[in-house]
């Protein structure tokens, strides 16, 4: 059972994590805007997360915490 936590307000919506996720469970939330004015990332199905930390590795802004 893995858990992702996002520091959503620091996300710049670059989507590098989205491309890196092997499960395809990350998306850029185009219906939301964070404090910086970006569409932030969100997880669509946490149950499927395997905690591989690929998203953490790719994130240039270090906004993702992965626990597994």
């Amino acid at each position, binding site marked *: 059972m893995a858990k992702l936590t996002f520091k959503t307000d*620091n996300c*710049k*919506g*670059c*989507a*590098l994590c989205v*491309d*890196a996720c092997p499960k395809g469970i990350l998306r850029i939330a185009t219906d939301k805007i964070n404090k*910086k004015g*970006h569409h932030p990332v969100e997880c669509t199905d946490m149950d499927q997360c395997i*905690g591989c*930390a*690929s998203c*953490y*590795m*790719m*994130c*240039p*802004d*270090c906004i*993702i*915490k*992965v*626990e*597994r």
Partner: protein
Amino acid sequence: MAVYEKPHALIDVPLHYCPGCTHGIVHRLVAEVIDELGIEGKTIGIAPVGCSVMAYNYFNCDMIEAAHGRAPAVATGVKRADPENHIVFTYQGDGDLASIGMAETVHAAARNENITVIFINNAIYGMTGGQMAPTSLVGQVTQTSPYGRDPKACGYPIKVCEMLSELVGPEYLERVTVNNVKNIRNAKKAIKKAFQNQIDGKGFSLVEVVSSCPTNWGMTPKQALDWIESDMLPYYPLGVYKDRSAEEKEAE
């Protein structure tokens, strides 16, 4: 339980870099290595002039902002001020390290100065808005090569690792990239080795990180990572260009 989160050596503030800029990835790798080696309290980082000029606001260790290109000379001073107790790294871009600061780079390498150099090669001047760098590819369109880099007018891009590898001095030279998870893992290994070498007193260790600049390349972050693969890496092949200790071990 395994936890991946912002390393202690990276201060918990938003980075000023553009969306998808790989500076942030390399900052994190450096900080992770500092954490894992337990050297934050004795590390002094030297920031360059360029996009990463404000790196001094991001690393938790003591930081110095150097003049453009002079980071290896400043690092030489800091290291020699207390060689036993100072771990010193520079963090420099291609304009800083391979253009205005080439003399400082070459001579720090030739002296085998016991410092760690993190060299970000993204083939462009980012901070000033996308001008041609010493590492810009032939044909690459930039603000100051609007018709593409013409080798007849401005020569060929400099391969820093290859060039420095001809020197007797330096201990370790490796080129890595951060365009996917696997390459990021390898980049971290190289950065860790570059710091470990300093701890072991082995000398000048430089890791060239082929990086992206989505904004000034005029690409999305993803396209920029793909362009590293398709255009940058054929000219800048990844690999170890010098590892004196390993070579000596092999010779034994």
